[in-house]
Structures are given as C-alpha cells and as structure tokens.
C-alpha cells in the first residue's frame, strides 16, 4: 500500500489559498501550519488561533460529522492550559448554538406552512357553523373548495371531487 506524501511546510506560503478552499483537508493543513506557528507564541495568541480555527470549521458548510472531526483534530493539535480550555469550551458552545440557526429555520419553514393550513381550516370550520357560503370561505381562507367540502362532510364520507 502506498500513500502520496505531502509536506505540510510546502503550504506555508499558500495559507490564503487554503483558507479559500472548501475541502475539509485544507482546514486540516491550515490548522497544522497555524499550530506550528502558535507553538512559538504566547498563550493568548494560541488561544486566539484555536478559537479562530474553530470558527472556520463552521464557515464552509461542512456536515456536522465533518465539523465534529475537525474540532477534535484542532483540539488535539493545539494544547491549552486548563483555564483557557474551559474558556474555549464556552465559546465553542456559543458557536454551536449560533450555527444551529440554519437547522432551526428549515424545521421552522415546515412547521409554519403546516400551521398556516391548520389555522385556515380552523377558521373555515367556524364560518361553516355560521352558514357562510363556500365561495366566501374560499375567498377569506384561501383554501380550495374541495378542502372546505371535506370539512362539511367530515372525514367519514368519501368525497367525489369530480362530480
């Protein structure tokens, strides 16, 4: 079995290029390079570098599995004293929460659509009780005639829509 060999140092001058790439391996290499530099730096710089790398993980639209692995990797290559690590964990939690939003909105879209329909049916029922005409109900609720007729007959009676 053979593996292609890549020298990380060769990428030292191509950091900008790595940061542009959407390949998760680009982030791995960038993290390696930055960690090498951070080794010489003080704790504060190390902390900043690590946090920035964490933030980068969330930027490129990676899947949550990829993000998780990248974070584990970064966590492993840049070591911080416990006090800083705790601070970083808090930051990471905030990052995760902020990045939940796209997931929330996709669920929200589905639930919103469903609720609109449900409430329209609810209003239609109330109007039917008052003998409001189907045409008027259609106008106000935006429901289809069929849907309103179905409400009138109840679910038990099959609806012959083509008659």
């Amino acid at each position, binding site marked *: 079995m053979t593996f292609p060999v890549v020298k990380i140092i060769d990428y030292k001058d191509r950091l900008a290029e790595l940061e542009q790439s959407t390949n998760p391996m680009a982030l791995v290499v960038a993290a390696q390079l930055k960690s090498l530099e951070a080794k010489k730096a003080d704790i504060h710089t190390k902390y900043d570098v690590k946090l920035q790398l964490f933030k980068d993980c969330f930027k490129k639209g990676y899947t949550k599995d990829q993000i998780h692995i990248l974070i584990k990797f970064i966590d492993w290559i840049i070591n911080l004293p416990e006090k800083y690590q705790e601070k970083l964990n808090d930051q990471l939690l905030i990052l995760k929460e902020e990045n939940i939003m796209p997931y929330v909105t996709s669920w929200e879209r589905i639930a919103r659509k469903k609720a*609109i329909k449900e409430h329209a049916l609810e209003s239609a029922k109330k109007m039917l009780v008052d003998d409001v005409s189907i045409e008027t109900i259609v106008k106000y609720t935006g429901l289809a005639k069929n849907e309103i007729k179905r409400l009138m007959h109840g679910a038990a009676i099959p609806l012959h829509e083509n008659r």
Partner: protein
Amino acid sequence: MSWKETIAMPYVTSWERIARKKGISDGRVKGIKENKLETAKKMLIDNLPIDTIAKYTGLAKDEIRPLMQ
C-alpha cells in the same frame, strides 16, 4: 456502538434535537399568526364587522384595529 456513533450521537441529540424542537414551535407560532392576520385583512377589505373577524380568525379586537388603517 461504533466509533462513529459514539462521536456523532451527542451532536445529534444536543444540536439537532434542539434545532428541531425550536424550529417546530417557532414555526407553528409564526404560521398561525400569519394566517390570522392574512384572513383578517381580506375580511377588512369587505368591511366585515370587527366582532365577526375576531370570531373567525381568533384574533383579539385590539389586534385587528391596527390593521384597519
């Protein structure tokens, strides 16, 4: 449990589950409100009495009045 499951599970539970729960409840509230207002506006165009609109949409009268302008 496989390695992948061990790693991914906390993510699925804490992240996705929260997202799902929050999304569904937010979406529901927004959707209901949106439909109420939408219906009320159409009824107002037809000059339906405010009591009738309140009855059918489930909105409070105070919520309908601002729509009248």
